[in-house]
């Protein structure tokens, strides 16, 4: 099942299915708010929910390459870009919910918080990386960037560390959830030590 031929032949349908699946958390959040299923003030829940899905989808994105190797399904690699863009999408919703619903678009306050709170700075840094990866994702840009594209997209390894750190730091108590994400993400980076070393090496010289 799910042979490479199948994955290639039904590429369009797989893409449509993936889009639907990855948009589902957004749909769930909209229904949860309309139906008050998240209680009286779902602002924190919403901010947390989008962040959680950005992380979940990052895990999915990083799992595609090892899966394709393990099961000899190179066709899977073709879906990495689509999945990766949804990481940025939910990270964007996370920040939008924070700025609009929590801070009430008080830009002075937003700036003050960014400067004063290290965990927000870490989050902002991670978002800048995601933004750079998003803007450089079209094939045209990729071709133009040549070798530096790989260098830029190697920053997904940095995200694997920065995002759980931002999560951990933001919690009032407890550490289990961010720790689980950190271990999974580091494990997934560990599966590609060769690429990781090559990426680190690309900064020397």
């Amino acid at each position, binding site marked *: 099942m799910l042979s490479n031929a199948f994955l290639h032949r039904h590429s369009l349908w797989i893409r449509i299915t993936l889009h639907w699946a990855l948009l589902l958390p957004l749909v769930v959040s909209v229904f949860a*708010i309309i139906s*008050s*299923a998240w209680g009286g*003030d779902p602002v924190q829940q919403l901010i947390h929910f989008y962040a959680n899905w950005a992380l979940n989808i990052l895990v999915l994105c990083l799992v595609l390459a090892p899966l394709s190797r393990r099961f000899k399904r190179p066709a899977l690699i073709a879906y990495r870009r689509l999945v990766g863009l949804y990481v940025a999408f939910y990270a964007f919703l996370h920040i939008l919910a924070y700025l609009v*619903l929590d801070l009430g678009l008080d830009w002075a306050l937003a700036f003050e918080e960014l400067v004063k*709170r290290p965990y927000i700075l870490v989050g902002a840094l991670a978002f800048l990386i995601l933004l750079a990866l998003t803007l450089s994702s079209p094939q045209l840009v990729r071709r133009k960037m040549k070798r530096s594209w790989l260098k830029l997209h190697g920053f997904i390894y940095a995200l694997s560390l920065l995002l759980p750190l931002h999560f951990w730091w933001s919690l*009032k108590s*407890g550490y289990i959830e961010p720790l689980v994400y950190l271990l999974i993400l580091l494990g997934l980076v560990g599966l590609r030590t060769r690429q990781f070393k090559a990426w680190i090496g690309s900064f020397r010289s």
Partner: protein
Amino acid sequence: MWIRSKPSWDYLSENDVTPEAIFKQRRLIMKGLVAGGAGLGTLGLPSTANAAWFSSDEPTQKVMPLKFKPHGNPPSDSLTPESKATTHNNFYEFGTGKNDPANNSSHFQPLPWQLKVDGLVENEVTIDVEKILAMAAFEERIYRLRCVEAWSMVIPWVGLTLKQLLKDVKPLSGAKYLAFETLYDPEQFPGQENRRLGGGIDYPYREGLRLDEAYNDLTFMAFGMYGKTLPAQNGAPLRLVVPWKYGFKSIKSISRITFTDQMPQTTWNMLGPSEYGFYANVNPGVDHPRWTQKTERRIDDAGILGRTRIDTLMFNGYSEQVASMYKDLDLTRYY
């Protein structure tokens, strides 16, 4: 003082209450757990999943109407709708999510309940909460509640001042502080045993007040809110309300109060001493290390998009009643 006139909201009598057995059976049928009640259960979905998705799992606990003297001179702030005050709670004993307490507390049994008062007092007593509910002359207090997370509500509590509740307990001269404890009962509070659900807190939840704070006229022991007994998620059957301090000081479901000469250990202070002090007075001048305390989001009847931040007031706007207690205290150091 006894108020015998029937307030306008009190139109339901005991006769109008659905008998508990029938009520519970109806819940079971809806959950598809009773044979013949073939419903959602037959779809093979766990009933809790249904509840979470459709949020239709009405609590099996019931709240009862209370008699009380209405708040004489209520503040101008508009009340937080009851539906929001009962579905947005920090009560990690039922889970760390804001709606976890409402969702996970439907089987909580608030009565019978004993409150033990001991330590440096002339008379150690055990207070039977059912007796208080039957006998006490309750009053209503409409207070602002400011959470340390920078959201706030305006809630009509029903209860007694702590001073009234403890009038038979004569503190000894050595008593300087009161230590409060939430009931420890993992059967009723699943978060107390499950680290993930309970947010890694060392239970039971503990809080404390200085003696003068405890005997301040504002310090209130709530047995109800919105004219009825407290729902489990709001701290049934009795909780502290200290309106000039951050919400975490207002400990819920209290089973023990100990008078002591030592400053008691308090849960959030133990967990993060640099972020949560013993005093925890609402103070817009002292930020939480990770967010601002200058402003707050007031949870009122506006939708989530219609809500704007308002300025946080010193002592949550209760300076007149409490500021004198702290005139010799450096509030930046003793936050």
